[in-house]
């Protein structure tokens, strides 16, 4: 293999040298480390040794000639390596540079270790502007609110621009409470805007009530999280009607209204016992299902403010009549705005009854984070087929919405079918 050895930068900061004496000649065989040539540089006279063993093929430069660093000195035929015709050019010792700056070592001082960077010939900074009068006044710190990093973090989490808040803390500092108080409803800015935009009486403005706000929040939350899927069924409940009629009279004096709802609640509870998927909750964060062991049936009830959903706790332990009593009680409380937090908590399944008002079918919105909601529609007199004959039937519409993440179509159907069985034949409720 042919090998060219270039005049190396021997670290004294040179760019050239003068050949004083050749120690080798063409054809001579040398070992690695043998002195090749005596070079005179700015600082020292030095012998340049060969980095490889081989036979000298050519020398470059005569005695007295000036050679630049990086230019060839000798060409070697390296022993023991055959078949390669390409000339390998010896690499000059790499001086590592950590950025792309040009490295020229013209003036490195004696005794210095390391590589010094030199400024380019015609590049220099302008004179310092120290002590020169500045054209603009010294920049004053921009007006900002004072706030601790903690308060700033809080504002950030709540997506509030802290600079908009007036601080009431020491030195006018924005405190935690300032931020907390900034959250609630008062939005004078918004009001201003609307009034500005619409000066006609095309619209009327009313502030949102607490309940309306809560409903709005819950509805959107439910829709955004649960994968709503609804199925619709009709069930003929003439048998149920007869039962109800009979017992309604019996319990009339017991101060509880016996509607169809208690029967439906009971049917739902029995069905849930056999289809626990619908009495559950999905916990995506921890990647698990939470199966409820209690049967707390929430009933959607009308109240002056709007819909509220009080809960019948442990409906599986109550008789149909007790359920009726409970419903009466909760409805009364709702009307009188006396529902407590306890009344509203821990529901596991919801029934919404809009039948009395109208509507046969609907697509009820799940009471999140429950798994499903059953909507009860109107009972309608309709022609039905009985024993292959047309008869007048009393048909109830059932609308079941499920969270499709939890409940598959088959499971939903089976659940509804179960309920329908119970409602069609109320005695079966006693059997389970």
């Amino acid at each position, binding site marked *: 293999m042919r090998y060219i050895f270039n005049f190396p930068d021997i670290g004294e900061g040179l760019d050239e040298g003068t050949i004083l004496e050749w120690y080798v000649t063409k054809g001579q065989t040398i070992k690695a480390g043998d002195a090749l040539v005596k070079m005179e540089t700015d600082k020292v006279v030095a012998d340049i040794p060969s980095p490889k063993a081989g036979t000298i093929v050519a020398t470059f430069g005569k005695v007295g000639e000036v050679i630049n660093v990086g230019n060839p000195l000798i060409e070697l035929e390296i022993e023991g390596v055959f078949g390669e015709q390409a000339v390998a050019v010896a690499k000059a010792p790499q001086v590592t540079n950590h950025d792309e700056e040009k490295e020229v070592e013209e003036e490195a001082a004696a005794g210095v270790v390391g590589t010094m960077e*030199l400024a380019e010939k015609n590049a220099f900074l302008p004179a310092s502007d120290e002590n020169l009068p500045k054209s603009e006044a010294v920049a004053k710190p921009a007006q900002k609110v004072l706030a601790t990093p903690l308060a700033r973090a809080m504002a950030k989490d709540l997506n509030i621009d802290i600079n908009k808040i007036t601080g009431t803390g020491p030195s006018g500092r924005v405190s935690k409470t300032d931020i907390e108080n900034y959250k609630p409803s008062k939005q004078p800015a918004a009001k201003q805007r609307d009034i500005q935009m619409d000066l006609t009486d095309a619209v009327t403005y009313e502030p949102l009530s607490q309940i309306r706000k809560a409903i709005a929040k819950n509805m959107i939350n439910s829709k955004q999280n649960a994968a709503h899927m609804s199925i619709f069924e009709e069930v003929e409940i003439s048998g149920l009607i007869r039962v109800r009629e009979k017992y309604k009279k019996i319990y009339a004096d017991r101060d509880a209204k016996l509607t169809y709802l208690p029967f439906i609640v009971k049917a739902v509870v029995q069905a849930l016992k056999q289809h626990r998927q619908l009495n559950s909750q999905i916990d995506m964060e921890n990647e698990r299902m939470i199966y409820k062991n209690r049967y707390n049936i929430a009933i959607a009830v009308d109240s002056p403010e709007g819909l509220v959903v009080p809960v019948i706790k442990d409906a599986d332990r109550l008789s149909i009549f007790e359920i009726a009593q409970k419903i009466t009680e909760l409805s009364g409380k709702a009307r009188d705005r006396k529902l407590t937090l306890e009344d509203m908590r821990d529901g596991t399944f919801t029934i919404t009854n809009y039948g009395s008002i109208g509507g046969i079918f609907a697509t009820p919105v799940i009471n999140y984070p429950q798994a499903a909601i059953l909507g009860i529609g109107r009972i309608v007199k309709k022609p039905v087929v009985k024993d292959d004959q047309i008869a007048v039937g009393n048909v109830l519409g059932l609308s079941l919405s499920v969270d499709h993440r939890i409940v598959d179509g088959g499971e939903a159907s089976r659940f509804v079918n179960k309920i329908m069985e119970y409602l069609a034949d109320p005695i079966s409720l006693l059997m389970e």
Partner: protein
Amino acid sequence: MSVMTIVQAINNALDIKLEEDKTVVVFGEDAGVEGGVFRVTEGLQKKHGVERVFDTPIAESAIVGTGLGMALSGLRPVVELQFDGFSYPAFNQVISNVSRMHNRSRGMYKAPMVIRFPYGGGINALEHHSESPEALYSHIPGLKVVVPSTPHDAKGLMIAAIESDDPVIFMEPKRIYRAIKQEVSNEKFSIPLGKAKVLAEGTDVTVVAFGAMIRECQKAMVMAKEAGISVELIDLRTIYPIDKETIKNSIRKTGRIVIVAEATESFSVGGELIAIANEEAFLYLEAPPRRVMGFDTIVPLAKGEPFYMITPDRIFYEIERTVKF
């Protein structure tokens, strides 16, 4: 005006003071005949005489100790230690005596001397030639510690250091000794010690640095500008006493601070500046103060040095993180 490198600027400062004040003497290893291994004192012995500019044996403790003796008996010595890592043998004289003489004698004796040495890495050097010991010296009560970043500042600060009646540790960033040229007045001028300089005004983040890192920060600022980040760059110039006023005003304006320095991160100038940020601008902070500094390791030799030395992109990376906090 002349175009000077930092080496030439310091040489010029020494020349001016040697000329003007006959009590000034300059000495150190190879500082006389050869003019110093970096040529900072070149030509001075020839011009001012061997009694005023001279070589010493290799004895750093003696260089500083005898310098102290001279300082307290009427002279103003400017002593040279050849490299940052070789200031360590003289450390005892600095911490035990130079820094304390004024206090010890209740003002009867003062120590108006300058101890100068080249500092800092990034030049592929051997061990002990890449140190950044400004925190060690700044932590000693009784000293002042100065680090220029440009030729103009080097000249002005050196003259101020020589004229100071307190002892000054003058650290010269060797990596940029000859890498920066600047137009500098040939006249005598001085820059007050203890004053930082705002090199560029900005609104999004304050970057504080000194010495060779200033140039790296300026390169990072170009990257920041492209990313739409407005950087305010402060050159400390004096480490002790530090210019709290300038730093305070800047952080209060931007709400963010990034400190860039070569030295070991733990227990450093970076830590001090973060303390200052908290003390002076706590309520204005929008992001935690950050320091971009060397690892808690010895500066690696050439092959490993690229990991250690702080580069413009690393500075930009930290600036961006701070702004996006």
